């Protein structure tokens, strides 16, 4: 992958995960981490290409993959980006636990339901994209 395309991917992943831009450091770390020799199968190639063309699909595909292909290269890259963001002083507030009111449970329940809905859609979409 070129630097430009890994930067674009890193930005897309960061925006998806945290709704924030990736810092220069995060972009550099992602490029370092990804440019290793991992072979990508056809299905993952198709998924990555689809995600690049249709950024809205990232969350849905991410949600479906744990059930169809848990160790997918798509998930691995997202996971690496997640770890990079967590190990950065620029995003600590998105990862360290915070005191929440009991009403926060409502948001947790909503996130859970959202995740299930995305997973159902993801199962369908992944099968369509990778056929």
């Amino acid at each position, binding site marked *: 992958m070129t630097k430009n395309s890994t930067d674009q991917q890193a930005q897309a992943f960061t925006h998806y995960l945290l709704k924030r831009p990736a810092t220069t450091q995060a972009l550099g*770390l992602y490029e370092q*981490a990804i440019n290793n020799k991992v072979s990508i199968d056809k299905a993952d190639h198709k998924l990555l290409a689809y995600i690049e063309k249709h950024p809205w699909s990232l969350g849905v595909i991410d949600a479906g993959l744990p059930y169809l292909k848990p160790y997918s290269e798509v998930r691995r890259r997202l*996971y690496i980006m997640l*770890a990079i963001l967590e*190990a950065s*002083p620029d995003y600590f507030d998105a990862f360290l636990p915070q*005191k929440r009111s009991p009403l926060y449970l409502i948001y947790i329940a909503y996130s859970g339901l959202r*995740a299930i809905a995305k997973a159902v859609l993801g199962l369908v979409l992944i099968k369509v994209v990778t056929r």
Partner: protein
Amino acid sequence: MAAQTLVEQTAQVTMLDVGIEKDASAVAIPDKDFLALRKNDPNQHRYFIGDGASGVSWGKVGKGEQITPPRKHILDLVEKYLPVDSSSFSPLESLGYGGLGIGWGLQCWEYSKPDLTASGLDSTRMLSAYQTVSDRIGISATKDDANSYTIGSLKDYQQSPTMDRNDQHIYQRYLAKKTQLNSQGFYMGRTPLGLITEDKGARKKYAYRDMDFYSDNDQSAWRPWITVNDLKKKANFTYINGYLVLRFVEKKEYTEIYCLKTSDGKQVVFRCRKLILAAGALGSARIVLRSLGNEGDRLPLLCNPYSYMPCIQPRFVGQEAEQKKLGFTQLSLFLDADHTNSGASVASLYSYQSLMLFRLIRHVPLDFKDARILMRYLMSGLVIMGVHHPDKPTSEKYLQLTPSKKTPTGDLLRISYSLNENENTLIKSREKAFTKAMRKMGAYTLKRVDPGFGSSIHYAGTLPFSSADKPFRLHPSGRLYGTRRVYVADSSGFNYLPAPGLAFSLMANAHLVAQNVVQNDG
């Protein structure tokens, strides 16, 4: 430990070791606490996730998940020089400077007298040896309900570190339901740790930085390399690294030690008057098989079956990060249904914070975006219960060396390990009992994770103690039968492997074997 005993007895001691050290270019970890580093250090990625995110594991859960980038050298060259062939057993070994102790969890339980006897260890001498080791390394412990399972007869020790909020609450709930839990065979107490809470020599007391998985800056946690560093200052101790011991040949007046020099693959021969093997149960087994065995010879193997269960304490979810969190286990819960202090299983309880959120998130079958939100909320209420069970020898647990042209040593270790139906049934029922007990203490199990056989990283019994002179057996003194001057000072001799971690016991045994070596001199 054996080396220290010998040096103190003025013996001339040489230690041969591969002894891989941490990369000199590794980033220094600042002396700050976990939360301060997370908020401020722009280089934190280097020790939290490693350069190139090398510390970010992907794929199925395996052993050593908690080995962080600053301690990754624990695994260097192991695949090359200690190859294992097994579909049923995945051990973790180390050629690092300080061995597996580099990442040891510090638990220092004494075995009970019945367990010592079952293991083939002299209970009277071992109790004295435990105190010697404790005085050397510094142990913090508490006199409490579970004393007979934890510190036993230990007299001199420092005070346990203060528990964090998760463990404090569990312990209070235990005390409130003590009578009921004790009647069911459950006993809970503070875990004795090789961790000092008062300064000891140049080592500083524990500073509650919650960097336990990453840093040994203050040396408050005892690691074997601390002792080797001290021994190197002694005139009668020589440390030679870069050599993998392959085998020995006992001659009339001396013993030859054949080694592989790891820098260039050349074979080098050393000589000694007496040889003590302390390469771990698997490592010592390899050396002995190469030296005295024939192809096809099998040795028994013991390994504590292990699983872990993340649990949730609902009253602590949605709380802020805790400044003085501990990465080490603070509480031990023993299940001794027969009340005989023999054959108990043990659960170690760990709070969770400094191993980061990403390690938790990958186990959640949700999209990463929502998994982060959920696990961040739950993390403050998360307790990991790691359960170990005792192990006895059976015909289904063994190892053997097989020739291989593809390895630098010319062989590889084939291991077969499985549990029979009775063992599986017992383990399942005990784990169910632990889950129920934890519920009574306000912690609810989310799932059971089985990292596979070998993941306890507790290995023993490959050269069992025996009163009869038999091949591949140890005299109670630690001397290898069939030799006059070769001793084994690790857990190879244990005839039975109690559930509480074996580190303290194998160190105590090592001290005794060294004493035996000196006494049998001449």
